[in-house]
Structure formats: C-alpha cells, structure tokens
C-alpha cells in the first residue's frame, strides 16, 4: 500500500510544483540534444576515421605492392639506323604480383637525345617471361650515330623504374660492339664458366636424373657416358632468335694417333633435371638470353682404339638450326678437354 501512496504524493507535488514538471520536459530535451550530438558527431567521426584508416591501409598496400614488384630486364639496346634503336632481350617478372609495363625510355648519352615508346601494355604474370626479339623487339625513335652509348629503362604501372639488369649488361656490354664481334665469329657465344659435364657408368635410360656435377670440368673420362652442360647466348646483330636442332653436336678430333680419331656427343633433351637421350630436341636461343644445352654420348667403343687417353683434345661445338627464316650454322672451337680412361 505504501507505493501507490508515494506515487500519488509525487504526482500531487509535481502538479503543485511547476518547476518539477518542466524539469522533466527540460531533461527530455537535454537527452535529445545529447542523443543528437552523439548520434551525428560521434558516429560521423567514427565513419570518417574508418574511411581514413581504409585509405591508409590501401595506400600502404599499394606501396608494399610497389616495393615487391620485381621485374628483371635482360635487354640490350642496338642501333637500327640513324633515327631508330631497338630493344631486344627478355622481361621477367620475378615478383609475386602481376605487373604491367607501360613505357620504354631510351637515351643516347653521346648525342644527348632521348625518346620513349608508350603505351607498351606488356602484362607479366608472376614468373612470366616476355621475349623482345625480332618482330617483338621494341623500337624507339632516337637520333643516334654508330658506337654511341645507348641506354634504356622501363616504367611500370606501379611507378617503378626498371633499368637494364646490371649483371646482364656487364656480360653483354655495348650492343654495337657485340654486333661487330658477332659479324666476325658468329651469332652465338659460349659461357666458359658454365661449361661442365655429368658422368654415367653407361648409357642412361630415358628419364634418368642427372648425377651431381663433375668436379673436373675439363677432364673427361673416355670410359664413361658423358653429358656436357653448355651455356650459349644469342648475340645476333639483327636480334633474331636461333633454333638449334638435333644435328648439333660436340665433336672431338684428336692428333695423338696415327689414325683419325673422332667422337661425338649429340644434342639431347634434359627436362626437370632428367635426361632423355633418345628424344629429339630443339633448343631456342633468344637474343641476349643465356640458354643451357646438353650434349650426351660416350667414347667407350673408341677407348684404346681411336682415341688415345691422357692427352688434350680440342672440342668443337657444332651448332646447326635456323636463325629467323634461314638456315644457320656455327662452330665454336675454343674448348679443350683432357681425356682419361
């Protein structure tokens, strides 16, 4: 009974006291004002902060993507004529994100000329390699004269500048000099530091994994089946690709006997570290790109007959195939091996 009495008493006091009733109305307005401020200012601030944080996150991600973009440009710049240069080689995406090349710049340090080709729209997925050679080489209109120092660089969509791979550039040097050299000795060069061989006791079956590398690079056992590892690079002055076919071989001809001595190692297919001696093979040499070739065979039948061991013999790397639309043949005669039993 006490509660209803208390309520009635409160109602009476409210009616009799005008300030008490208006206080309630005022309180309602105070709540409304507070609610209005909280709901608009606080919530709005929160949404704006979220927007800002999202932008910061996106920008950081874009910066991270940009710094993770890794494109290797194994390219050379060569003179086409007095107003044009060509960029040949490969562009390889070594990063984990797809990348797009938008612009190619070329400059002639001697003439102080520069120009660009844009848009290129070369898209490289992770691990992809794009070959710029022959018809796919990129031409840049640039005033130049022979033996000028030419340079080039690419611009990616993420804003990275991709210069020529310095290791590749150091190995290829000036393309004009290359052109002059290759006119004299041929379009293919061999990397001597990457010449070695693998040994098998006998002719391996199809799909046999290659053994570990032989420690003696230039010492070959005549009693074993040998697979030569040869790295060749195409430095064709016209920037054409070269395709070598199965007629290519390594040939040995020795002077240490009264009879004619010879032996051959044929160009073979090695895929995924396994050798397929009986499979036909074609090797494509792209302009400026070092390519590994394998030649295999044995001299078992010749041991003690035509080949005298314990002598140094010259190796001739006989290359045959096509360059562009024409036949191409070249002999690289600069290797010698010490033959043992």
């Amino acid at each position: 009974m006490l509660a209803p009495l208390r309520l009635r008493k409160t109602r009476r006091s409210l009616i009799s006291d005008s300030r008490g009733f208006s206080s309630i109305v005022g309180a309602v307005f105070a709540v409304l004002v507070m609610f209005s401020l909280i709901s608009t200012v606080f919530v709005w601030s929160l949404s704006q902060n979220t927007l800002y944080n999202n932008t910061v996150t996106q920008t950081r991600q874009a910066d991270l993507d940009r710094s993770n973009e890794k494109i290797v440009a194994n390219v050379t710049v060569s003179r086409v004529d007095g107003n044009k240069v060509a960029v040949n080689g490969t562009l390889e995406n070594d990063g984990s994100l797809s990348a797009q090349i938008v612009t190619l710049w070329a400059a002639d340090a001697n003439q102080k000329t520069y120009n660009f080709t844009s848009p290129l729209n070369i898209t490289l997925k992770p691990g992809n390699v794009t070959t710029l050679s022959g018809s796919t080489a990129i031409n840049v209109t640039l005033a130049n004269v022979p033996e000028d120092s030419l340079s080039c660089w690419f611009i990616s969509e993420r804003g990275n500048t991709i210069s020529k791979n310095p290791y590749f550039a150091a190995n290829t040097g000036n393309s004009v000099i290359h052109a002059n050299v290759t006119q004299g000795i041929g379009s293919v060069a061999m990397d001597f530091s990457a010449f070695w061989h693998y040994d098998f006791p006998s002719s391996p079956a199809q799909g046999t994994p290659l053994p570990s590398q032989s420690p003696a690079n230039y010492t070959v056992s005549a009693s074993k089946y040998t697979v030569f590892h040869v790295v060749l690079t195409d430095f064709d002055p016209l920037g054409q690709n070269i395709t070598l076919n199965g007629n290519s071989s390594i040939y040995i001809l020795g002077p240490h006997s009264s009879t004619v001595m010879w032996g051959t190692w044929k160009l073979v297919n090695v895929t995924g570290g396994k050798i397929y001696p009986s499979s036909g093979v074609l090797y494509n040499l792209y302009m400026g790109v070092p390519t590994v070739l394998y030649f295999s065979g044995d001299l078992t039948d010749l041991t003690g007959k035509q080949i005298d061991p314990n002598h140094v013999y010259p190796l001739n790397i006989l290359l045959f195939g096509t360059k562009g639309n024409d036949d191409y043949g070249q002999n690289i005669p600069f290797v010698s091996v010490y033959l043992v039993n």
Partner: protein
Amino acid sequence: MQPRFLKLLKSRRAVSAVISNLILIAAVIVVGFAVLAWAQSQSSNYNNQYSSVISSDTNQLRERMVFEYIYYDNAHNNLTVYLMNFGTIDNVNVTTVYVNNTPNSTIALRLLSSGASISSLNATQEGYFSISPSPSLVPGTNCPIKIITARGSSFVGTFAT
C-alpha cells in the same frame, strides 16, 4: 473525475498552478527546440569541417608521382621533367617546383602521349613540363628537385645536369 475537474476550475490557486506549469513547459519546449536546433547545426558544421579535412587528407594520401626522366639542356637552360601519376586519385596538379631549393610556380603541364596542354594529371597518366631554372644549373652536378601538388603532397628526386 468530473467533480474533481470542476473543483479544480473553481479553485484559483489550482488554476494558477496549471497555467504556470503550462507557461514553464512551453518556455522549456521553445528553449529546448532552439538548443536542439543549434546543437544540430553546430554538429552538422563540425561534421562538414571534419569530413572535408578527412577527405583532403585521404586525397593527399592517395597521390603518388614518379619522375620518369629529367633532362637538363645546358645550352638553353631548359629543364624538362617527365612524370607519371601512379596514385589512385585524379586531378593531381603540380603547383610549385623546387630546383636546387629555388621555387618555380609557373608550371605548364602537358600530356606525354600527345603533348596537349593539361591542368592536372589523372591516375596512370604521364605528363611533362619544362622550366628555365634561375639561376641556371651548373653542368656536371647532381641537383635535387621537389614538386609540390595543390593538395600539399611533395615528391623529391635528383638528376644530373
């Protein structure tokens, strides 16, 4: 209820209490609405200001520029700067260029592909501008360059003269 209401009407003190209550309530309502409207307008202003500050900050954050190539022609004291907007926002306007810490505000931006005059660079667009640094640059030295955009971003680089 009927007799109680009549009794209330007959009582002067009771009527005056009701009237004073009504007047006070009306006053509180009027003042309350006024305060509410004022609070809402203030919060709205604050929201607009805050929104524009955040928008300006986020737009500035999204600006990214790269120097594709910078070439200085010693003979003619002419510096050409090639840029690309690789950010995610359009209308990036270069307002000031500092070459060797000397400002230059006369920037005539052009599109790289066509050479057409433009006022700003949109996202992924490439452009260039030429200026004549004063004093002229010393050949064979490395010079710092800094560009300032209308949104307040700055991008720095160096080039060889």
